[in-house]
């Protein structure tokens, strides 16, 4: 199976091509269902290969789990030699399973969700393309292929956000996503150029492959650029890319708007896979980040801020998808917090669990939205659990996971992050801890507003509201089950586990503390450097204390949501009618007015700038050219002996609307075409003569 790994990205790409070219015809002649099956086929095959290969991979010894397949050269110029090559190792194997597994489920789910959409085929073409690009991103053995995937997923995100392009707002949201991502991409490129620059200066060939980069880190660490260590500069630049792609402050603004896309897209691209690319990138290049301490600290701070602010916004949204969107930004903040404190395996593990529970939440919300006839406002919902039991319970289980209820996947992953943050700094931990409570609050708020209490929409909707067909709810149920269970992959040792997930990743991703203990970073020698655990450093009591603390705190805030939204809504209304809370709410509901702020300081001035440049070009630069024409004309008249034709030319140039022009050229256009033809013939004859004479 492992030898078939290159097929994994290629299959969905082929699928995208086939559906893109023939999908419309297939849908028109054979039918929608056939198009959907075709759309699911390639991701399904890719998933089969991914899972099959995974079992082969873990059957290998830990030291032999990096398989690089070299396919063909890509760009070769002098010492710059980049290939088409894929790298299959524990990290990419895990990502492959997330992407193809959840991807296939979401494809199946989409067959129901996109039912009766006239552009059904186009949807499947795009989303196949997305899978292909995302798989390239994680499988690429060098930075350039990663960047190819990185931009490719951005393109698909753009296409899918604006999928219903006749709505100008949706089209705008797509463009916003693409351009904000481009800002980040410039960072990615600059990081890459920095590495190329210093790699080429010290070695004969630059291939940008991860293996090569890892081996060169010690050399590159000796140099500085603009007064900073090279690795800090590079790591920082790449993180700028991650800020864009993974929606961190200050570039997170595109993600909430991205919810304009169809809900399966939000689940797959804007929650489970694409937005985690930044986290993946740091894990992939952990060897560089471990040598860039300043950047790591910066990442931790950005992450904590993002985590906190987006959670506060999430508490004040009414659109169910917006709640989930801000929750995603906030959870991505958790992942980066882990990366920032050097706990790469913890961050990656949260990436995995988050993919499961957030996909379940989004798909659940999509199921609700369809049942509610495309209503997304939670204020018009309520009591839906009775009508949609499978969706409802799946949503509740996923909520348990995201709040970190003991035993669920979120419990293990979030707890590990908080513990690692605590070891680094109490302040980082405190932010993470507070946000955990806020997460629990806004998620239960959404649950209670949607699935419990009285229905608040109109009678007609309630009558028609029903559970969705199997192909929609079964994928949700599977993901909810995963959301509950995945945590057992990485049970900490003090609870009787052995951190099997971290152990699994350790041949390719070593946490900062291990790296420091064992020296950096050339060895890829697996299990003898098993993760170093808290017992060796800290206190069992602290670990248990932290855990109990956060569980209690999340339960408390869940109860608060229960009280305010279900038991005693009057108390909430009374509270919200006061001026202070109302003002706070307004700020939060309007997302701190960040979009407005950007319009004011970036978009507005930019608009003025290009409008000015356009006029400058038209009146100043071109004006100077025309002025030269005027001067020529004036001189011509004054001197009077200049060749008539040159003057005429200058006149024509200047007075573009004048009759002079018309007169001069009417000759040409009417009667003198023969003259032109004659001139051509003369020239032709001359050339021919010369040619014949000497040939």
């Amino acid at each position, binding site marked *: 199976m492992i030898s078939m790994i290159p097929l994994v990205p290629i299959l969905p790409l082929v699928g995208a091509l086939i559906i893109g070219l023939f999908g419309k015809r297939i849908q028109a002649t054979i039918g929608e269902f056939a198009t959907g099956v075709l759309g699911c086929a390639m991701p399904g095959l890719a998933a089969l290969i991914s899972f099959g290969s995974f079992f082969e991979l873990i059957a290998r010894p830990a030291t032999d789990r990096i398989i690089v397949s070299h396919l*063909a050269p*890509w*760009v*070769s*110029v*002098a*010492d*710059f030699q980049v290939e088409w090559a894929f790298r299959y190792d524990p990290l990419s194997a895990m990502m492959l399973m997330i992407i193809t597994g959840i991807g296939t489920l979401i494809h199946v789910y989409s067959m129901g969700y996109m039912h009766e959409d006239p552009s059904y085929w186009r949807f499947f073409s795009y989303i196949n393309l997305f899978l292909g690009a995302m798989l390239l991103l994680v499988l690429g053995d060098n930075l*350039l292929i990663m*960047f*190819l995937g990185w*931009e*490719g997923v951005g*393109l698909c995100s*753009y296409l899918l956000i*604006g999928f219903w*392009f*006749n*709505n*100008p707002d949706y*089209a705008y949201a797509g*463009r916003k996503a*693409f*351009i904000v991502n*481009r*800002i980040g*991409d*410039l960072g990615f*490129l600059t990081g890459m*150029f*920095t590495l190329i*620059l210093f790699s*080429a200066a010290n070695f004969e060939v630059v291939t940008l492959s991860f293996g090569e980069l890892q081996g060169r880190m010690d050399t590159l660490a000796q140099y500085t650029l603009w007064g900073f260590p090279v690795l800090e500069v590079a790591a920082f630049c790449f993180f700028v890319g991650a800020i864009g792609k993974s929606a961190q402050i200050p570039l997170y603004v595109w993600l909430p708007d991205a919810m304009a896309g169809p809900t399966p897209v939000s689940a797959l691209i804007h929650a489970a896979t694409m937005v985690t690319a930044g986290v993946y990138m740091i894990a992939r290049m952990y060897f560089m980040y471990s040598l860039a301490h300043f950047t790591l600290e910066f990442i931790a701070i950005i992450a904590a801020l993002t985590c906190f602010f987006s959670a506060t916004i999430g508490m004040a949204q009414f659109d169910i998808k917006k709640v989930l969107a801000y929750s995603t930004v906030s959870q991505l903040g958790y992942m980066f917090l882990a990366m920032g404190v050097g706990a790469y395996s913890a961050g990656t593990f949260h990436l995995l669990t988050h993919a499961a529970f957030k996909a379940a939440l989004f798909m659940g919300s999509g199921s609700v939205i369809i049942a509610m006839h495309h209503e997304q406002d939670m204020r018009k919902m309520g009591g839906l659990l009775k009508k949609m039991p499978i969706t409802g319970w799946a949503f509740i289980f996923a909520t348990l996971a995201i709040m970190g209820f003991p035993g669920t996947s979120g419990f293990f992953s979030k707890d590990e992050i908080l513990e690692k943050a605590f070891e680094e700094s109490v302040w980082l931990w405190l932010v993470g801890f507070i946000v955990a409570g806020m997460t629990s609050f806004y998620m239960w708020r959404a649950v209670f507003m949607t699935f419990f209490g009285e229905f608040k929409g109109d009678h007609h909707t309630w009558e028609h509201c029903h559970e969705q067909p199997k192909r929609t709810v079964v994928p949700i149920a599977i993901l909810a089950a995963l959301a509950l269970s995945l945590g057992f992959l990485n049970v900490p040792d003090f609870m009787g586990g052995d951190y099997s997930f971290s152990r699994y990743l350790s041949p390719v991703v070593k946490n900062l503390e291990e790296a420091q203990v064992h020296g950096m970073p050339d060895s890829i020698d697996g299990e003898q450097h098993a993760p170093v655990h808290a017992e060796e450093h800290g206190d069992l009591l602290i670990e248990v204390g932290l855990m109990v603390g956060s569980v209690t705190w999340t339960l408390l805030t869940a109860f608060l949501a229960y009280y305010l939204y279900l038991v005693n809504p009057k108390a909430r209304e009374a509270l919200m009618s006061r001026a202070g809370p109302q003002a706070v709410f307004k700020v939060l509901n309007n997302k701190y007015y960040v979009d407005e702020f950007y319009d004011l300081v970036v978009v507005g001035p930019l608009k003025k*700038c*290009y*409008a000015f*440049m*356009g006029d400058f*070009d038209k009146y100043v*630069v*071109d004006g100077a*050219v025309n002025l030269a024409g005027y001067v020529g004309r004036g001189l011509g008249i004054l001197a009077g002996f200049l060749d008539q034709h040159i003057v005429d*030319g*200058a006149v*024509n*140039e200047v007075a573009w609307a004048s009759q002079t022009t*018309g007169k001069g050229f009417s000759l*040409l256009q009417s009667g003198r*075409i023969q003259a*032109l*033809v004659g001139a*051509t*013939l003369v*020239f*032709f004859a001359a050339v*021919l003569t*010369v*040619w014949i004479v*000497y*040939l």
Partner: protein
Amino acid sequence: MSHLLSWVVFLPLIPIPLLFLLPKDKGKWLALAVTLADFVIGLPLILGFDRAMPGVSNPGEMQFVERATWIPSLGVEYYIGIDGLSVTMILLTLLIGVLAVLASWNIAKHEAGYWSMFLLLQTAMLGVFVSLDLILFFVFWEVMLFPMYFLIGIWGGPRRVYAAIKFFLYTLFGGVGMLLAFIAIWYYAPGQRTWDMIEILQRVSAGGHFNGPDIFGVEFAKMIFVVLFVGFAIKVPIFPFHTWLPDAHVEAPTAISVILAGVLLKMGTYGMLRINFTLFPEAFHWFRTFLVVLAVINIVYGALCALAQSDLKKMVAYSSVSHMGFILLGMAAATPQGMNGAMLQMFNHGTITAMLFLLVGVIYDRAHHRQIDGFGGMASVMPKFAALTSFAFMAAIGLPGLSGFVSELLILSGSFKVYQVATIIAGLGIIFGAGYMLWSYQRVFFGKVNEKYADFKDVNVIEVASLVPLLVIVVYLGIFPNNLIVFFEQSMNHISELLLAR
């Protein structure tokens, strides 16, 4: 076949008399046959080209050389030949020629005149890329002006006359300086006087110097360098000499815009590489920082101006200004990556921009205007057209996996080695690029369907036939760029050495 190169260059001229004998509407078939035939006889040039020979400064390494005395009294020769630099441009010219015929399928005004001008233009462009004699180069350069002037001035849009004269005078202005510079080069060439540019370059690279006097208090080499640079910069065009370009594009018929952007602009950068930079490496270093500044201005300023346009074709024209800036940036950096990237960009910009102008032509043919805000929802009306346009726009934005990305990557990584800050500023051009492309795409194709245009027909066979070859090339070179790079890599590495050795 002997004289293969001459055949390729002059073949388009041969059927010109026939054009006037044929019925009016058959001219396009003849033109199509000729450009296709030219492409076919050009293939042996490309397939038989020895990629291991850099050429450039080695007369012995020029390939398919033909040499004969032309004007004995002046020592001017008919001297043509190709190296990696020229062969790429010839391939591009031959290809664009065929597609431009398809793009002119609907020309219905003085057909015979149009096609004879068209074919003459083809010969002139090919001639520029093969000439190794300074005077021969200059003749082809000026001959190119003549058909171009009429093609814009007669078959163009409402302000065609203004645009044609502006184009003509501007290029002529550069050309006069160029001729004077050529004469100076000939007169003060190291060693014996000659018009042979390869010979002079060989002497220069062997340490020879121009022994000319200071001109207006400026060193000879610097002065000649600047004069030549202005001449070529007008053609590229480089800020502030670029304002003829938007006018010419807006007024020119679609096919002529395709040729103008696809091939003509490259004559400027080709000339810089072949004559301007390499003959005066010291002056190049003296001027280099300024070149980088100009390149960055072109990239960013062009992109900002593109954002400000309301006419779709003008927007594309300014995007050309921006993209040509990348070529200059790569050449100014002069590193192997920068140089090879510049050459690759010359080819890629040719194909991608040709697509863009063809697509603008498609919508203009139907709506008879190009106001970006005058459309809306066209993606629902013309889905195939929308798909092709989004592809071309993405290629222009530099999406990885397509050809434009590879060349921009090489240029930027090559220039980052020398000019970090300038490279990052140039990178802003990439962001603005996404801005103007997607913004105009959104306004034309997304949103509510404009009822006025709800009955537009999607792209027809001819239009698809002109676009698909370019699409295939853009994808192919995005995935396997090496298959083109090998043609010019030795030459460009050699130029890089020549320039950086000083």
